[in-house]
């Protein structure tokens, strides 16, 4: 009776409980550190992406400004004067007007067999 009374019984339930608590705390701690690290990494990625986006936007603005300059009337005329762009004025007798349906001229043109007529601003006698 006495021997059985003094036997050291392992408190399995308590041990399991404490081990579970310890594991939970450890996991929570590790999880906290992991998520904190993730936040940091994602934050850095966001920062890098934002910087890239800003750079791209700036480059886009710069390129658009350059396109505006190069396609402006004054620039093109300067290049034309320099002979870089070769343009030949269209002669009056080479201008062909396509009559739009419904216009007065279309009705007149319909009477003629020719749908396309060379015209010029100087009206030629019929």
């Amino acid at each position: 009776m006495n021997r059985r009374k003094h036997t050291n019984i392992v408190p399995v339930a308590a041990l399991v409980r404490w081990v579970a608590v310890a594991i939970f705390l450890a996991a929570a701690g590790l999880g906290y550190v992991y998520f904190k690290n993730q936040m940091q990494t994602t934050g850095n990625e966001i920062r890098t992406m934002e910087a890239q986006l800003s750079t791209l936007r700036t480059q886009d603005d710069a390129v658009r400004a350059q396109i505006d300059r190069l396609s402006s009337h004054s620039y093109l005329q300067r290049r034309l004067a320099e002979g870089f762009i070769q343009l030949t004025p269209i002669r009056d007798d080479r201008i062909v007007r396509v009559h739009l349906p419904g216009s007065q001229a279309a009705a007149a043109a319909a009477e003629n067999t020719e749908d396309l007529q060379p015209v010029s601003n100087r009206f030629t006698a019929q």
Partner: protein
Amino acid sequence: MTYCAKVRALIACCALALCFTGFSARLVQLQVTRHEQYAALAAEKHGNKQMLYGRRGLIVDINQQTLADNDPVRNVVADGSLLAHPEEAAGVLAGPLGLDESALIEKLASGRRYIVLKKDVPEATAMEIENRLSVRSIRGITFEQDAERIYPNGPMACHVVGFMNGDHEGVEGIEAQEDEYLRGHEGFRYTERDRSGNELVAYRGEERAPRDGYTVRLTLDLNLQNIVETELDTACAEFKPKKAIVILMRPQTGEILAMANRPNFDPNEVRTKPAAYIQAHEGDMMNCAIADMMEPGSTFKMVTAAGALNEHLVRPDSVIFCENGAYNYGGRFLHDHHPFGDLTVEDILVKSSNIGAAKLAMELGEQRFYGYIRGFGFGERTGVSLPGEVPGLVPPPHRWSKLSITRIPMGQEVAVTPLQTITALCAVANGGRLMMPQIVHDITDDKGQVIASFPPVEIRQVVSGDAAREVTEALKGVVSPRGTAALAKVSGFVVAGKTGTAEKIDPKGGYLPGKYIVSFCGFLPADNPAFVGLVMLDDAQTKPDQNYGGMVAGPIFSRIGEKAARYLNLEPQPEEPESDVIITDREHD
């Protein structure tokens, strides 16, 4: 355990408890009681308010061709508190920024947290400096985003587009008028940084996104503007006038298709010039089309004729005796440039008879005539969306002299702006409906959604459609071999218009001898106008016998009209037979 041991243990426990209580109290004091103070301190040390750039909106023409854009630049800013070695930083910065190294060291060593080192540094230069600083691990230099306003077409339409000052505020033109829409709104973000200066994204605070400025789309057509500017340059080279103005408008809507002034300026250069230069050239930057007023001369006769026809006091074929060129009224003689006897109302406009116009105005009477002048929009601002418009000067009848009823009909004793003149002619071309001149077509955001649009605004019906048609018929005669503006003819089209040759007013009183403001205002095709044009030259240098609206401004209108008609793809119409007879006008003898 002995008693003593128990006492010692108790004392130790109490001491520990007291110690931890002290720590706790201190923590509570730091974290709760003095939270604000330390949070502010931490924020000052590691926190930062980052400004987020909102770019200024664009100004484009009706076809979306750019008139004003932004070229990205950087402002180089230093934080003196983060610079460990100002000398090293100055060594890297001085060369590319073109700054004196010793002055730069002095600035950087001041320890201030916000030192602007240089503004408007090109993007490429900024990137180069950034790389160099990165290689040497120099902290404390930042590159703030900014933009330089550029005008790709240089001086073209400069008076309409306007320009900005160094503080990114619109000063003239659309830049000033629509500044509220064009201005981008900066955003901000509160951030925290670690010891090495990198942002801790997880600790971002309050944030407001920036908003880009809106795009302002004008009614101007750059292709027509280019035609106008080219012809204006040619005319200025030939006649060397003090000022020259050309406006093209669409009569049905009041849209301004082109507006050019001489002298002009390049808005790209305004920012780089010193204030003294800008003050000296303020006149060049003034949009004379809306801000300058002058006596209109004979172009004003159409107002007189339109009023008389609208009141059915006369018909186009009614005959008025023009006193054979000299009319004594109020003790003063009024002359015509040629002695005319009987003229029809139509011929009064065609031949530009001063006496005929005066008699028409007398038929109308002072009050009714004044009503028509105001009805056509003279004496009040047109309401165009451009800054600096003046209303002109039209005195009320109770302030008229006895001679006024004979002088005002031929465009004396009143002061009008070129825009008012063309707007009045637009009313005639538009069946008597006066439209508000419009320069802004719509305002859109960066996604293309319309924020504000400006539909045509009819101000009033000034004269009936019949009266407008009768005036138009008469104005057709002006641009015919028997009229005063045969040289304003545009091949293939019937043009209606009116010349004006007004003597320049002497600031000391009277008129300046030999100085004229010559003009031609017309529209084509006369029966279904696609556009109305005004050409005005102040003090053109030409032979005295050729200094008339029909001979100077008329041919310029003709060249512009021909090119514009071709650009607008207008269908040519049959022409009337030609004649070599050319009559010129001068109303002030």
